[in-house]
């Protein structure tokens, strides 16, 4: 396999196979390349038939597209995972406590650990949530923590997704596909299961039902509709949980409850897993133009008549500017040292930060504070002089809109390319469920892989693919 300078998760510097990959490698060496290539095609057909497709934003007439799937699994040892999941657990508890504090006493601001401007001037801060107590005290029912790796034990959190993390259907379908194509691999390796996720999700959501719920809570998934790029995932999760998939126009506020229009009249909902952004949730309280939400749902919510997952206003915790304060946030609420590392982050809103970023632009990654999907970012080392200059102008015009980080040397995992195994950069998004019963981290997650040689951008909208992620039972 071709060498790269980054840490490769399968092969050591001297080409010896690292422990978690040993059994897989034995299998792989006995496999015929032509058979594997046909398996790769089989995987594509399976994905297309199942309908795991997405629409690219801004291209309404575009065909449904598949996210490329690579058949080589990404393998993590049980002990590595144990350390990671403890760190994730800690971080998620801190995030939840932080959001509660921000919408109540703001102790962390009073203690001078997070500047007040970061909260008041933040678009993700929802004044409507001040003083609201969500059922069970949970704000972030579902969290996705994006991790990258740079060395044997070196994991960094790149981003916390505390609003509506997506991609869990790929975690599940990738595993399903691997189980169908390579059953023998799962006989030879003890891979921890991920398939319980939908059952756990439903239990976790039901455990957060409002106090007034007497019977088995009625759960529903709220989708923006069939043209949303993640519609497949919304339908998939509703189907796997055995709950209704609703849109705004199926719902209305009826008798102090949010109710869905069934063939036999309106039926109240206890827990709404919404995949609609805050802004569109309630045209009476937020964006009045929204067709996707339910007029008055926020009033029902504030009166304790429904659980909204994740709670409105959780975006305050996954904002990229807040991200730089995460080590302080973790320490402040848990009283513990953070187990997971943050990537050093320069805030362009601060003069010294901006100066440093301008001076070192070609070595940095610059991101928009509110951006997502890999859009609007600059990767210094991969950019031309012209691109750097034009970005420099943007930075000076709106410094508060940007943060910058050093380019990390992301770890690689091999993909099955036309010429055999080839190292490609990856990240990892584990999925976490939070309820009053505790925090549950699913062993595995979504591994995204930059399929282009040398590329660091793993986003599916920009040429990224996915892999099945194995956590071994040690």
């Amino acid at each position: 396999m071709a060498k790269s300078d980054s840490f490769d998760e399968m092969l050591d510097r001297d080409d010896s196979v690292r422990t978690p990959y040993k059994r897989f490698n034995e299998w792989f060496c006995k496999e015929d390349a032509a058979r594997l290539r046909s398996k790769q095609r089989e995987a594509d057909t399976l994905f297309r038939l199942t309908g795991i497709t997405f629409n690219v934003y801004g291209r309404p007439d575009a065909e449904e597209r598949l996210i490329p799937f690579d058949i080589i699994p990404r393998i993590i040892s049980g002990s590595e995972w144990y350390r990671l999941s403890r760190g994730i657990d800690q971080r998620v508890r801190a995030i939840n406590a932080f959001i509660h504090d921000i919408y109540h006493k703001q102790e962390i601001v009073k203690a001078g650990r997070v500047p007040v401007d970061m909260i008041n001037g933040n678009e993700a801060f929802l004044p409507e949530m001040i003083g609201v107590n969500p059922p069970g005290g949970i704000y972030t029912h579902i969290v996705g923590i994006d991790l990258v790796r740079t060395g044997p034990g070196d994991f960094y959190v790149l981003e916390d997704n505390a609003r509506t993390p997506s991609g869990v259907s790929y975690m599940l379908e990738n595993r399903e596909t691997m189980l169908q194509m390579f059953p023998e691999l799962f006989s030879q390796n003890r891979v921890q299961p991920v398939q319980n996720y939908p059952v756990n999700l439903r239990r976790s959501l039901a455990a957060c039902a409002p106090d007034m719920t007497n019977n088995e809570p009625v759960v529903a998934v709220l989708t923006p509709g069939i043209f949303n790029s993640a519609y497949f995932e919304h339908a998939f999760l509703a189907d796997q949980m055995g709950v209704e998939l609703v849109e705004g126009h199926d719902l209305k506020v009826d008798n102090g409850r949010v109710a869905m229009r069934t063939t036999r009249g309106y039926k109240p909902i206890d827990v709404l897993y919404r995949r609609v952004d805050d802004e569109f949730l309630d045209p009476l309280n937020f964006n009045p133009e929204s067709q996707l939400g339910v007029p008055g749902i926020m009033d029902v919510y504030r009166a304790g008549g429904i659980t909204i997952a994740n709670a409105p206003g959780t975006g305050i915790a996954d904002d990229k500017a807040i991200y730089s304060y995460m080590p302080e946030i973790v320490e402040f609420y848990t009283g513990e040292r953070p187990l997971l590392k943050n990537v050093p982050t320069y805030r362009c809103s601060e003069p010294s930060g901006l100066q440093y970023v301008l001076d070192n632009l070609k070595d940095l990654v610059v991101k928009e504070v509110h951006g997502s999907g890999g859009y609007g970012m600059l990767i210094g080392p991969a950019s031309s002089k012209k691109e750097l200059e034009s970005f420099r102008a943007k930075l000076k015009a709106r410094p508060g809109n940007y943060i910058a980080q050093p380019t990390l040397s992301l770890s690689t995992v091999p993909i099955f390319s036309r010429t055999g195994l080839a190292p490609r950069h990856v990240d990892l998004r584990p999925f976490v469920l939070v309820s009053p019963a505790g925090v549950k981290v699913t062993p595995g997650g979504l591994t995204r892989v930059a399929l282009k040689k040398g590329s660091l951008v793993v986003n599916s909208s920009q040429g990224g693919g996915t892999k099945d992620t194995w956590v071994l039972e040690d």
Partner: protein
Amino acid sequence: MLGKTANGLFWMYRYLERAENTARLIETGERIAITRLEDRDEEWNSVLQSGGVLDAYFQVNETVSKDAAINWMLRSKDNPSSVLCCIETARHNARLVRTAITGEVWEATNAAYMDARSLLTRRVNERDLPKVLRSLRQGTALVRGMTHGTMMRNEVYDFARIGTFLERADNTARILDVKYYVLLPSAGSVGSSIDNVQWESILRSLSARGGFRMEYGHGAGPKEITQYLVLDKRMPRSLAFCASKLCDNLRYLHGGQRKQLPSFKQVNLLEQKYLKHDIEAIFDFGLHEFVQEILDQLRQISTQVEIDFRFYE
């Protein structure tokens, strides 16, 4: 179940049924055209009419020709009832109701759609037509098979069936509406060659030849054909069969509630008033008028089902 989901199921199965019926009409048209020596294009006029797409066809075409008619019914994007559009619409609705149908039904629907798209990318050559039509019908048949084999018998299934049988009744009635004159007792001497071709065309377009032969033999004429297609409850595309299935499924949906739904009353009326007679009474009333009234009833039932089960509000 959500009203929206009931709506999606209803239309998913209506469009699957329509795709299949349209494919069968094309197959019949082609069969008649290549086995008959005169008036070849005339048959396509009545095929388009039976498909309920003649008016729309003339908005785009000047004259009726075989190639244009086949293309219009098979794959035209301008014709929402073309086989391709029907399958696309069915699949779109299947995505909307993905949580109500089984994975097997979804995958069969998606496979039918993927096949239809690849088979109908270009105009279909005459020599490929039989094979393409067979593939298309197999695709939709697989969805039906998966529906029978894997779906719970609950309200989801009831709405699927209601969509299927409303569409099917409509299709049978339309074929009778277009060809009623060859079925009248006054339509010339039994057994003349023209009529044989016409009768064969009617039976073929309803997949009814085999059953009819077994039941009535070769000597039978228009009266028996009408009897078979309108009143015979054993024939799965007859009006009486469809009406009785609609009755059953609406009754299941209704459950134990005391007050009868308006849509159930209407279907009941359809069955009692129109489909319990003997065939002589229908001819006395006038076959054409009779079929017209049935078509009108079917439209009303469709609208009433939407209202009764809160499809839209």
